[in-house]
């Protein structure tokens, strides 16, 4: 059935900043290989993700890019993921081999976090077939510790997210799986008369369960999916984010599923999750229909002090903006806010909240690209331009034309945000299916800013899950969260960037750590990155 939808050609408004694709200039040369075959295996449509991480601790964000390769997977150099070291001068160097990274599986996503709190950021890679956990040795190299730490599950792994579910100071790991494609050989989609195949829709594949691994605190993990109440939840996960939706200090979990209900799991006591997907209103569109959920992000879009949720969806559906009303209840503002009005022919994948002009409000970047080379829907194309949805500060959005890089059609997939040049504005890396990597550098004038780099002590080392509130002299409160895993198959810069607009200073910065410790900094200096180590009140 055709769903009737929205304005496709809303004109983009002017933009005070410009995004420029500088990937080639900075030597981020990477071409995704999707391994398209005449058989049209579903994994070939997925593209891949990327992860920003400061693997060498030099204060500059490096970039890990996931490669797919041939399908079915074969040991193939073309399938090798890549790690690009940020040289600190605006350029990158491919250090994959030097770093000892050898993942040549059919890759999906990458999610960086310091899981063992040793001060060196580790890396989880999801693949079709399994996952790989790379332990950062702290000397510029990594070691595959997957089996050693107990991450042996199999399946088609896609999204992942790191979060301290039980508040013990160690990061736990959520792994989403997409579909069970073992019987794909029994399906045909396409033109029976000519035998020409196309990709089958996800509805034809059975869903699967996701997995939750608890960190034992000694570097190993234990599967607690059943104990956490997640073992019966069958989905088709493509996006996941840990976010404390009710500000009770416990990491809740939101999962975008493809054409089935999205999950919102409320963390009850740090050991168990309660499924509030339907009750919360975040499982479906406003009419109760499941959507083709891909990328997700969470953040306070309307400045009311509660984290909201957003999902990038398939064509002829709206990109969803769920406004948090408190008490685990959300309102769907996709239409009334303008957030979803441009969705129409676009197939949304990567989705990131970012304060593009450092104005103090979170905008949204959406990487689009179809899954079919020849989309059935007239007007839709395989390559599609990305969208920058501009926030007026009150949670109302309109599309802005922020540079030619955002007008160029790409087959967009994963996207991840980082201030790679440490100039105080967010840049965006975008992977494309079967195409070149993009690095969208944020150029132009923007507001004042403050960057925050957390170092946990009682909490996990990176302060993942921490809530930061910046108060301006004018009384505006900006709330941000530290996350590890969001968007589509990707993870972003874990540092928090506050855009302050025309405010020259900050009155106060409050950090609520995952440990529960609340740390307040009065009048922090702005226009720089601030390193904050977790400390008890009254202690330095």
């Amino acid at each position, binding site marked *: 059935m*055709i769903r*009737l*939808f*929205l*304005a*496709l*050609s809303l004109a983009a408004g002017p933009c005070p900043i410009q995004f420029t694709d500088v990937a080639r200039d900075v030597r981020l040369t990477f071409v995704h290989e999707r391994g398209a075959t005449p058989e049209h295996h579903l994994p070939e449509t997925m593209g891949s993700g990327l992860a920003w991480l400061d693997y060498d601790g030099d204060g500059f964000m490096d970039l890990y890019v996931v490669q797919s390769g041939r399908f079915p997977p074969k040991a193939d150099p073309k399938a090798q993921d890549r790690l690009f070291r940020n040289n600190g001068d605006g350029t990158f160097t491919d250090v994959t081999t030097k770093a000892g990274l050898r993942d040549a599986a059919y890759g999906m996503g990458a999610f960086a976090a310091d899981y063992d709190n040793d001060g060196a950021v580790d890396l989880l890679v999801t693949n079709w077939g399994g996952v790989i956990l790379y332990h950062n040795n702290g000397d510029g190299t990594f070691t595959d510790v997957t089996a050693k730490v107990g991450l042996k599950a199999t399946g088609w792994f896609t999204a992942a997210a790191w979060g301290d579910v039980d508040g013990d100071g160690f990061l736990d790991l959520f792994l989403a799986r997409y579909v069970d494609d073992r019987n794909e050989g*029994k*399906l*045909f*989609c*396409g033109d*029976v*008369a000519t*035998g020409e195949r196309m990709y*089958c*829709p996800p*509805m*034809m*594949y*059975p*869903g699967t369960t996701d997995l939750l691994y608890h960190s034992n605190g000694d570097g190993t993990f234990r599967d607690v999916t059943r104990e956490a109440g997640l073992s019966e939840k069958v989905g088709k996960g493509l996006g996941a984010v840990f976010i404390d939706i009710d500000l009770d200090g416990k990491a809740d979990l939101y999962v975008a599923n493809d054409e*089935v*209900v999205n999950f919102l799991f409320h963390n009850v006591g740090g050991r168990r999750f309660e499924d509030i997907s*339907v*009750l919360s*209103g975040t499982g*479906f569109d*406003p*009419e*109760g229909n*499941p959507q083709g959920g891909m990328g997700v992000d969470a953040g306070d879009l309307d400045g009311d002090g509660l984290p909201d949720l957003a999902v990038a969806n398939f064509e002829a559906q709206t990109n969803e903006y769920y406004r948090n*009303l408190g008490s685990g*209840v959300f*309102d769907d503002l996709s*239409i*009334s806010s303008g957030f979803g009005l441009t969705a*129409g*022919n676009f197939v949304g994948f990567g989705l990131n909240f970012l304060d593009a002009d450092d104005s103090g409000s979170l905008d949204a970047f959406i990487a689009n690209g179809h899954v079919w080379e020849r989309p*059935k*829907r*007239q*007007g839709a194309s395989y390559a599609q331009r990305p969208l920058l949805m501009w926030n007026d500060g009150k949670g109302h959005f309109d599309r802005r034309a922020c540079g030619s890089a955002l007008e160029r059609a790409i087959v967009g997939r994963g996207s991840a945000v980082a201030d790679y040049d440490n100039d105080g504005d967010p840049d965006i890396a975008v992977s494309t299916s079967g195409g070149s990597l993009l690095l969208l550098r944020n150029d132009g004038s923007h507001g004042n800013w403050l960057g925050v780099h957390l170092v946990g002590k009682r909490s996990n080392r990176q302060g993942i899950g921490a809530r930061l509130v910046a108060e301006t002299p004018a009384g505006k409160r900006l709330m941000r969260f530290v996350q590890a895993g969001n968007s589509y198959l990707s993870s972003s810069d874990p540092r928090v960037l506050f855009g302050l607009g025309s405010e020259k200073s900050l009155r106060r910065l409050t950090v609520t750590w995952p440990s529960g410790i609340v740390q307040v900094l009065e009048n922090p200096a702005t226009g720089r990155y601030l390193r904050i180590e977790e400390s008890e009140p009254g202690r330095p």
Partner: protein
Amino acid sequence: MLRARKLALALAAFFGAAVLRADDPILQAEKLLARKEYAAAERLLRETLEADPTSARAHGNLALALLPQRKLREAVDEGRLAAAFGPGSGEARYIYGLALKADGRPLEAAREFERAVALKPGEPAPLEALAEAYAAAEDDRAAEAYERLIGLEPERPALRISFVDYLWRAGETKRGNEAAAAALEHFPQSIELHALYGRALFDQERFVDASAELARARELGDRDAGTLSLLGNALWQSGRIDAAREILEGAVREHPQAMSLHQDLGRFLLSQGQSEAALPPLAEVARAKPRDAAAQLDLGRACEGAARLPEAEAAYRQAVSLAPQLSAPRYALGRLLVRQGRREEGQKELAVYQSLYTLAERRIFESESRRGEALLAWSELRAGKPAEALKHFESLPESADSLTGQAAALSHLKRHREAVEVLERARTLRPDSPKIQAMLAAERAHAEQRP
């Protein structure tokens, strides 16, 4: 019901067959038939046949007189006699075919039409009947028959319409579109063709092209509510929001009694976040259709969007009571209650919704995956791999479609007796399918030829 046009064609065929005296009773009877005085014609023809029971023309005409009176068995008998006494008469075969078709015997009818066409290859009427019979049986020969027919009668738009309609129904989308475009070149002023093509393009999700065709139909004078509705929706889908609104609002003004148009307009406005504006048309629909759950649900959505929450709740509750098995009103009501802080009440509705959703999700997966499996089997058959296809068809749950596939595969493997058995089972599941009947007849014939 036999169409008057076919009667006239059949009669015309007979008029041309032989010269009769002006006072000949057969000629008198044919005049009565032309005036649709069927009972009088029947009486006169029966009298004539008493005098000359071997007159093929009288038997044929009697069959034609009996058909509109729904005396089908007698019409078949008379048709058979006409064919028997006029074995070289294409007209008699054609009339016999018409009687068989009216009696629900499409395969036998098609056989008679084939004979009629063979005897009268330049006569459009039997060829049209044959094309229709093939199309009904999903027989590939329909396309060729239509093409020949169009060659005989190039100035009849209706034939083009039937042809493209057949191609689209047969899944030959591209060929259907080409035929439609060719027909439109020949009949650029045909409202019906523009509207039909627009509708097909809409179904193909070619909304830009669909809106162009539908707009052309409208320009040529099509004021049909269905066309206007589709045009508005095509414009909406194409992102031409202002134009869609203009068309839908105009359509409502033009057809104030057409509730479907009020509903289209209201839903369109809701989708644009204009709940206040959506209220009047959706309230109109709800008033006109107080027992329609969908109308109440739409009204509730508009009220909710306009912050008229008590009215929204009342409308949702009405929708739930009208259609308790529908999931959407449960979701809307449950969500409204939860957002109002009435969590427990809302949870009850949402729990019902969730169970309905879970069932629906399972059904969708099962039907979709079965569809993919069936398509694999059909593609294997097309690719000349009947053994593999048979294996896959056999692995599907028994249904008319899977059995039809099995039979097709068995036929390719020349296992005709087994194909007959399988098709007999398919026929019990779908007794009215001309396709199954056609296959069954063909397999029986093959089975009889092969020991």
